[in-house]
């Protein structure tokens, strides 16, 4: 029973991975691509690792999969935030259809 639930979790994670990578190819802008790809792929890979834990049980591989989930969920948003901040400060233009840019307004308000 645990193995069937684990395979369902892994299928869910594979679907999220493939949709995140389609967003990485198809969307028009750096910030849109970052927003689509980072969230979808982080959730998808966490789901694959949780399915691995359900299949392997409380062995060495299962507990290492849980440790890897914790590490991934802690580090992936930090990396995405650093990329977005660096791209905005390096002067990468927004897409023409974007309507608002709060970070630029904040920097102009400080100066």
């Amino acid at each position, binding site marked *: 029973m645990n*193995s069937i639930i684990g*395979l369902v979790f*892994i299928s869910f*994670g*594979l679907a999220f*991975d*493939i949709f*995140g*990578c*389609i967003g*990485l*190819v198809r969307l028009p802008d*750096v910030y849109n*691509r*970052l927003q689509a*790809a*980072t969230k979808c*792929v*982080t959730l*998808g*890979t966490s789901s*694959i*690792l949780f*399915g*691995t834990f359900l*299949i*392997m049980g409380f*062995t*060495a*591989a299962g507990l*290492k*999969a849980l*440790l*890897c989930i914790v*590490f*991934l969920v802690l*580090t*992936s948003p*930090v*990396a*995405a935030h*650093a*990329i977005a*901040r*660096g*791209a905005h*400060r*390096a002067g*990468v233009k927004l897409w023409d259809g974007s309507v608002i840019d709060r970070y630029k307004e904040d920097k102009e308000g400080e100066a």
Partner: protein
Amino acid sequence: MKMVRWIIGVVIFIAVIGLIMMRKLPFLFCPGLPYIEFVGRALYVIIFACIMCLYRIWKGPTGADRIVAIDILGILIIGLCAVLTISTGRSWYIDIGIAWALQSFISTLALSKYLEGRGFDE
């Protein structure tokens, strides 16, 4: 021109789905391992996602696109290591995943600092 690109994309997507649904397994696996019917199809899906990330690394207009694609490629390879752990039952594949996560995080932070154009110690 836009219509031609749409048609090429749809043909590639249908070809990959047909490859996944096909009864033939990947050639590098012997059929005696547990969950091999599932794991072979999962490997096709993850490799297709990695090829899309490589397209964005090759074609990305700015440097930030390439850095995003490298980060996503690292996270996908952790999933690949987890799927290989299920099939073979050896726990050192997930060790490779943990080490890859650490290295990918630190390299992404360093590349974004480089993109920002400042020193590393600020």
